[in-house]
């Protein structure tokens, strides 16, 4: 039995998971257009490899990152690229970003696939390249390229590999349903990752409110070394740092990565994507998405092609338009609101909540902080949410940063319990944004200063150079004048002789060199030419 620890703080919000677990995973219908953002991962945006009008096959690479960190984008089905343009993408800003628009031809014709029968015969690097080329980036929400994550810094050995099946946020059931229905693939993906990392311990952590998933996974890991840890339901147990604390008792150092303490966390969906990449050779072109909320008649989970507009999925789930008040992408604790349902499903889209006004009501107006300390009780990172709030609100970002603002995981537990309904997380996000912007500006200003100073130095040098040359010329002129005067005054022969002798010596040396060169050419059989040999 795995020894479990507790993490401090945490809350127990209503789960609302039963809404979407009643139905099996449905395959979403093929939409009219697929919208494929070029950046669905952390790192550099991918560059299109196809042009408008090109026909692409299902699974074909249509955009890739040539330099820098990133993973390719694949065509989720066969069809024609009809546009490369800015479209609304899932992002808290509600802004647009560059997308490839694919019009499916309905044939669903695969490109050639190269599955691997036995990955044990492959090298670590080959496997990582295979995962990268399949476009796998963390399906949990951040979208960090999985191949990069699976290659921790050389001096870090991953001793514990954790598969995060906690799924602690209310409403979301994508991982739950995946574990119930695709437990074998989950375990197979974990085995591949374990083969790459060679950890001494593999754990799948699942919250105890998912007994069906626990049973399915337990059946799938039977006969392997993989542990299944059933952890108490408490938000945010699925936070990477919290889950690590629960399962290992260790804390990820501030500013560090789990690999620093020999731990790595991977998402359930990522494991499935890795399994498909290796065993079927299929790239990441679809994912499981929960469509839920009281504004849809038939909430549930969908296997949707990447690029499927959220509107299509909502329609399939029976959206009750008039009652839709808020559209949340992700969970109700950490997700962000969408301003339009035209955004597509991406690699990181795990849940869409179509909420009615009663379900997720407009928050009460902000009242004064009464320092009740509920927020500090709830904070899983043991921060001082009140102090962070005052400093962020007052614009004292330096003080907020000193109180570990950047350790905040924005889980929302503090805002959830705040009796004065202060949007604490938004204050922290604002403060973080300001600090990052300020830092970027500072770096830019420093560079501008450097360039300015370098330019000043250069101008000064040029000035001095000019000055020096002028002086030299003046001196030269003066000397010549004086010399001329001297020559005129007394016929100074010895000096002239000396000069003539020197000139003769130089002539002699030149002649010697020429002769030598000629000899060398003859030796190497090259044509005797005074021109340098023509390269190319």
């Amino acid at each position: 039995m795995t020894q479990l620890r507790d993490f401090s703080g945490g809350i127990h919000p209503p789960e609302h998971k039963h809404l979407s677990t009643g139905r099996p995973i449905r395959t979403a219908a093929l939409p009219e257009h697929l919208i494929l953002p070029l950046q669905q991962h952390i790192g550099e945006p991918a560059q299109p490899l196809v042009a408008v009008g090109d026909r692409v096959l299902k699974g074909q690479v249509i955009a890739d990152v040539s330099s820098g960190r990133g993973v390719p984008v694949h065509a989720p089905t066969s069809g024609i690229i009809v546009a490369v343009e800015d479209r609304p993408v899932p992002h808290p800003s509600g802004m647009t970003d560059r997308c490839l628009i694919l019009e499916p031809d309905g044939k669903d014709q695969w490109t050639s696939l190269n599955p691997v029968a036995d990955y044990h015969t492959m090298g670590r690097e080959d496997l990582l390249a295979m995962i990268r080329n399949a476009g796998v980036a963390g399906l949990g929400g951040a979208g960090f390229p999985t191949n990069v994550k699976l290659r921790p810094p050389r001096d870090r050995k991953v001793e514990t590999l954790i598969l995060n099946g906690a799924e602690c946020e209310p409403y979301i059931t994508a991982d739950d349903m995946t574990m119930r229905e695709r437990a074998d693939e989950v375990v197979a993906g974990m085995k591949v990752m374990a083969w790459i990392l060679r950890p001494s311990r593999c754990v799948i952590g699942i919250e105890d409110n998912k007994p069906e998933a626990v049973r399915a996974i337990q059946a799938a890991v039977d006969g392997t070394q993989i542990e299944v840890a059933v952890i108490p339901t408490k938000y945010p147990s699925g936070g990477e740092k919290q889950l690590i604390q629960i399962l290992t008792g260790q804390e990820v150092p501030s500013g560090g990565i789990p690999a620093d303490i020999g731990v790595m966390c991977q998402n359930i969906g990522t494991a499935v994507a890795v399994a498909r990449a290796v065993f079927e050779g299929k790239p990441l072109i679809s994912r499981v998405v929960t469509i839920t909320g009281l504004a849809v008649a038939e909430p549930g989970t969908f296997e949707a092609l990447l690029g499927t507009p959220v509107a299509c999925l909502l329609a399939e789930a029976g959206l009750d338009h008039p009652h839709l008040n808020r559209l949340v992408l992700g969970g109700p604790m950490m997700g962000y609101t969408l301003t339009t349902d035209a955004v597509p499903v991406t690699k990181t889209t795990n849940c869409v909540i179509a909420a009615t006004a009663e379900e997720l009501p407009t928050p009460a107006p902000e009242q004064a902080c009464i320092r009740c300390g509920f927020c500090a009780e709830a904070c899983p990172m043991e921060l001082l949410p009140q102090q962070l709030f005052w400093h962020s609100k007052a614009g004292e970002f330096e003080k907020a940063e000193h109180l570990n603002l950047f350790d905040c995981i924005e889980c929302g537990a503090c805002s959830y319990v705040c009796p004065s309904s202060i949007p604490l997380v938004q204050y922290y996000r604002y403060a973080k944004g300001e600090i990052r912007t300020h830092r970027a500006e500072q770096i830019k200003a420093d560079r501008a200063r450097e360039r300015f100073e370098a330019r000043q130095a250069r101008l000064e040098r040029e000035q001095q150079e000019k000055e020096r040359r002028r002086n030299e010329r003046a001196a030269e002129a003066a000397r010549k004048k004086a010399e001329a005067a001297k020559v005129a005054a007394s016929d100074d022969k010895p000096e002239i002789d000396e000069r003539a002798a020197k000139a003769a010596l130089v002539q002699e040396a030149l002649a010697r060199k020429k002769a030598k060169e000629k000899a060398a050419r003859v030796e190497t059989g090259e044509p005797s030419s005074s021109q340098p040999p023509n390269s190319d």
Partner: protein
Amino acid sequence: MGINLLLAILVLLALAVVFGGLLGFAAERFRVEGNPLAEQIDALLPQTQCGQCGFPGCRPYAESIANGDAINKCPPGGESTIKALADLLDVEPQPLDAEHGVEQAKRVAVIREDECIGCTKCIQACPVDAILGAAKHMHTIIESECTGCDLCVEPCPVDCIDMITVEPDIRTWTWTPPARGVIATDRQGASA
């Protein structure tokens, strides 16, 4: 009586010497090497090098402030720079001196390249060497190095340089603070 008085004076004197010595030692031993004032001020200026303050660059203005010049002559820095300077120098912040310009959104210069005649005048004007090009060849601006100082616009004989306001995009976007006032949400119309 006399001896007591003498004793008291001696004790106090001894104490004064000891503590004076300690303080002196501490002042030497734990001295904080501060940046010269002008350098600290220069670090707060935006390094636009635009010269709107009347000085040829940020550094000269910083030196002038260190010698008692007004802190409100920097339009690119605006309110926030004035406030930071006021904090550093422990003086009252003043509003921006309109004589030197008004605070504007961040901008960068862009050359309309097909109109450029390759005169190199802008290259000579750029205080941070952010313009590439050679005589009789088209010039271009290294956008990431441009401070938006405006100095290249004036010398251009064919007026082919535009100052473009930098709009926040999806990669530079950050959260806004919650709205002050009673209601903290806003409704946005969106296409269905």
